[in-house]
């Protein structure tokens, strides 16, 4: 009888016995009533095909509860439940607000690991269908984000068409300097600068010189965009990611849709950090 030492088993056994006794008792009571019981009481007037019904008033407690419910129902309809008190959207708004507050306080000062983790998550959900899980742009279908400029022709296109090559001649990405004018250089000069920029600012003396004279005034002598005045041409810094996410981009590869309002500031920083980590 080892299993009886377990008190859960003891309780279960006790319960089973109680149920059995009650069942037998109740069944016996009704059997007795069927055998010996006599009907008594006053019949109602109406009968259905000769089958009558006793006058059988409802118990007081039950009646009170019933009337109480009706009164409560009227109160609830008129006072307790004003039609506009609850709205699904209201609940949604509150849910989002409280979540956002929690999110912001939790990630007020994210560490580098936090950012990379969050950035990878955002990237896999929102960006990988176009840029690929490894961010190489799925064989040219979108920008290869593991390097700043993939092809010389991309830079060349911007030199030729200026801001129009990014989707909007009026300066679409929203940098402080606004737009980039078209046709700053042409022919072999443009080729040389484009090669220099696409190679990550290496080699090519002619390109380097031309960059200093034609481009450095806006993009900075080091090509890093002078703290967000113009795009950083050497790496994906935070401003460029957030500008592209805000405004989208339309270049020679294709259309990058705008993510305006879809990511929080921290998420933008995180995805930027993640993208930078890919080229390190």
């Amino acid at each position, binding site marked *: 009888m080892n299993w009886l030492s377990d008190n859960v088993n003891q309780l279960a056994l006790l319960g089973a016995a109680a149920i059995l006794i009650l069942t037998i008792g109740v069944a016996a009571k009704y059997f007795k009533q069927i055998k010996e019981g006599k009907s008594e009481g006053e019949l109602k007037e109406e009968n259905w095909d000769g089958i009558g019904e006793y006058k059988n008033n409802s118990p007081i407690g039950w009646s009170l509860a019933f009337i109480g419910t009706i009164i409560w129902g009227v109160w609830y309809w008129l006072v307790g439940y004003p039609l506009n008190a609850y709205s699904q959207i209201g609940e949604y708004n509150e849910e989002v607000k409280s979540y956002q507050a929690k999110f912001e306080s939790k990630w007020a000062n994210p560490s580098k690991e936090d950012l990379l983790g969050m950035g990878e998550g955002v990237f896999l959900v929102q960006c990988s269908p176009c840029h690929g899980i490894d961010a190489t742009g799925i064989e040219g*279908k979108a920008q290869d984000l593991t390097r700043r400029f993939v092809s010389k022709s991309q830079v060349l296109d911007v030199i030729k068409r200026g801001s129009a090559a990014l989707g909007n001649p009026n300066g679409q990405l929203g940098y402080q300097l606004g737009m980039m004018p078209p046709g700053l250089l042409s022919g072999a000069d443009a080729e040389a600068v484009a090669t220099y920029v696409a190679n990550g600012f290496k080699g090519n003396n002619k390109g380097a010189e031309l960059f200093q004279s034609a481009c450095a005034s806006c993009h900075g002598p080091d090509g890093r965009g002078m703290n967000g005045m113009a795009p950083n041409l050497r790496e994906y810094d935070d401003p460029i990611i957030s500008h592209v996410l805000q405004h989208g981009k339309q270049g020679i590869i294709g259309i990058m849709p705008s993510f305006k309002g879809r990511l929080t500031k921290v998420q933008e920083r995180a995805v930027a950090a993640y993208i930078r980590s890919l080229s390190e």
Partner: protein
Amino acid sequence: MFGWLERNPFFFAVGVFVVIAFAGLIEIVPDFAQQSRPVAGAKPYDLLRLAGRQVYIKDSCNACHSQLIRPFKIETDRYGMYSLNGEYAYDRPFLWGSKRTGPDLHRVGNYRTSDWHANHMWDPTSVVPGSIMPAYKHMFTNVTDLETAYAEALTVKKVFNVPYDKDIDGDGKIDVPLGSFEEAKQRALQDALKIAQETKRKDLVEMVKAGKIPEIVALIAYLNGLK
């Protein structure tokens, strides 16, 4: 009183109906007329998009995709703003769907592009490794049935007074022109050419230039318009 009800089955039935319908009535009726109006900015489908919608229905995309973003943070984070009743005012029938084997598509136009759709419909695994969505290669050669789409547009215009050829937002311009079939077809061909070019597939561009719109182009027009 209950005895009386029991003896009068008709009034008993009326009573039962009122009691059961009560909650529904006070929840639905007061807001219904307002909620079912088109939201500001809603416009009927132009011919090409309507044809694309018919392709969407024909190929049962709604068996795997919903078009209804619920007001939950997890959904609005991924798909964007929750859906409103009035956005479906011109959907006949609406395509809410009831099962999400794939993601919701109600705002897919905001975050996918023509070329992406073309790649994805041709071979989903080429952009989403491991995707279980079937490829729809036949859409790249099948020609869109513009006649049926036009018939649908004309019918809803005449029968339900859907505002084709009308100035909806009050800026003095016609918002969604329909006109005669020839006019509508020319317009659809122009829209189709733009989309075919965006997909960067020469075969599609050539078909459109030859006056035939492949189903995929109409479908992409429809998907791009889901915003």
